[in-house]
């Protein structure tokens, strides 16, 4: 059997009539920018998360950037985050001239270690940006408590975790601001770039809506610096076409991820699932030694793998000088050498999954 790392084609086949119809509607009505599908999607996603506002934007990266701009983050400000994440998390901080402050991760979940955040706070700190890595929310209660104590804003980088729950609440509605991505490979993805910001703060929502259209308070009047940050009507339509199956997909992801954990138990070290939250398994990740050899072996027998992430951000040449490390980041460095992600999608069959598990265990010599 040929195994896909993420099977987007199977998903499209299942949703083809819905997605095709939605796309055709946009081509027919011609409102390619801020068409009716934009508002429709925003209303549906806001309702899904429980946040008062959903603001769709050009990408997950743009979501983070616009969120920081709405907070008026400036050069000299510090934003606490994790180095064990996709580069966008630190990139947007640096683009605004602010300083990313890297705090180490927990070695079992690879999420930011909340117990190390307070030590990183200085008078220049403006916000904390935890990442809900691989689709499992970070320790949001602890982080929100610390932030409240110091007058900071929490922005959940939920690029990978839309659909996940934390103590019964939805990811993206766990803090003042939540940002997600609809990159095609995400649990809820479009067919290009897209993203969304969630907040229940009316002032922030208004700022974000203005920022995404070049800072316009109304047409031709630019009261703030903005970006060209809208999500295409076409991409909103694609996401709308996928919504009918999304809750089922979330259930499948949870079931498949849990099954992976059961099958690997005692044999292969995996990301720990905290009991008070779910994961949408944007990535299903295991920890291995001799990763390169293991990946080569698996590739040779048809099992694709990926590494998220091989180089933590404080070691990226673009960020080494721009960021600041708080304390030690030894877990980030160790886990960067050990993580390996396996094929995962809602359409992964039981047979494929058991096949993958068997081959991984053999490749590891267990």
């Amino acid at each position, binding site marked *: 059997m040929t195994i896909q790392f993420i099977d987007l084609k199977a998903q499209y086949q299942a949703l083809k009539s819905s997605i095709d119809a939605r796309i055709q509607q946009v081509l027919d009505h011609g409102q*390619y*920018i801020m068409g009716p599908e934009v508002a429709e999607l925003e209303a549906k996603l806001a309702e899904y998360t429980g946040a008062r506002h959903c603001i769709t934007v*050009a*990408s997950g990266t743009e979501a983070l950037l616009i969120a920081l701009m709405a907070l008026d983050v400036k050069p000299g400000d510090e934003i606490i985050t994790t180095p064990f994440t996709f580069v966008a998390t630190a990139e947007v901080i640096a683009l605004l001239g602010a300083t990313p402050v890297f705090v180490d991760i927990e070695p079992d979940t690879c999420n930011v270690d909340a117990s190390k955040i307070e030590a990183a706070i200085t008078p220049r700190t403006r916000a904390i940006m935890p990442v809900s890595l691989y689709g499992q929310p970070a320790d949001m209660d602890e982080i929100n408590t610390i932030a409240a104590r110091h007058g900071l804003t929490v922005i959940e980088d939920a690029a990978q975790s839309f659909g996940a729950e934390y103590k019964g609440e939805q990811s993206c509605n766990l803090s003042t601001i939540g940002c997600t991505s609809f990159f095609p490979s995400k649990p809820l993805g479009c*067919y*290009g*770039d897209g993203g969304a910001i969630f907040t229940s703060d009316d002032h922030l929502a208004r700022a974000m809506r203005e920022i995404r259209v070049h*800072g316009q*308070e109304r047409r*031709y*009047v*630019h*009261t*703030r*610096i*903005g970006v*060209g940050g809208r999500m*295409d009507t*076409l*991409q909103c339509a694609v996401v709308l076409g996928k919504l009918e199956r999304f809750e089922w997909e979330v259930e499948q992801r949870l079931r498949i991820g849990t099954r992976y954990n059961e099958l690997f138990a005692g044999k292969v070290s995996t990301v720990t699932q905290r009991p008070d939250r779910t994961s949408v398994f944007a990535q299903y990740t295991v920890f291995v030694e001799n990763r390169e050899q293991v990946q080569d072996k698996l590739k040779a027998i048809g099992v694709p793998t990926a590494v998220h992430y091989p180089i933590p951000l404080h070691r990226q040449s673009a960020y080494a000088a721009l960021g600041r490390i708080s304390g030690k980041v030894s877990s980030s460095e160790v886990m960067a050498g050990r993580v390996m992600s396996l094929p995962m999608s809602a359409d992964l069959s039981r047979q494929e999954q058991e096949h993958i598990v068997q081959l991984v265990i053999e490749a590891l010599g267990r």
Partner: protein
Amino acid sequence: MALTPRSGAVMSAYLYGPPDDMDDMDDMDDMDDMDDMDDIAAKHGLPVIEDACQSFGAVYLGRKRCKLLTVGCYGDCHARNPRPRTRKALLPHRRRRPHGHSTQCVIVLAKLHRFDWEVECGKGLGAGYAQYTVFVENREKMLEVFKNAGVPTAVHCPASLHRQPANKTEGPGLAHTARAAARVVSLPVGADLATTGQRRVVVVPKEGIA
């Protein structure tokens, strides 16, 4: 005169196209003289960036490199047309989302087969511009006249950048900008605009003022 030791680049914008009626522009230099701009920039060791958002298809002569900043597509600059003049083509600048086979690239590719025809039609209409813009006095009244006649118009741009609240810059030497901002009106344009439609647009202001 605008150059200082902190100048990093010169960024010009091809806006609509060159003014047809030079009488209206009296003392104004030719804003669109890329050769002069290139020479000045070269003298000061500065790169020139051309904001060609409205002028896809423009090409440049000369030593200095300019980059075409955007390519028109549905998701973004969906009202763009090429300029009627051409110079030597230069490297298209990649957008901030450089995914080579995206939905938007597919749409632009589908449009390319009739692109030359659209350019030719544009020349036939006397336009070929992203915006066909005229200068009027008493713009508010003119907009009302067009609106009552069912002719859509647009104003690009009523508030020039130095006067936007986000920029808050004032200063000498921007009098032409301010004057243009108060007088511009853009009219319907596009390769699919029929000749009868164009005639109607031209007649409306004459009827409205009479």
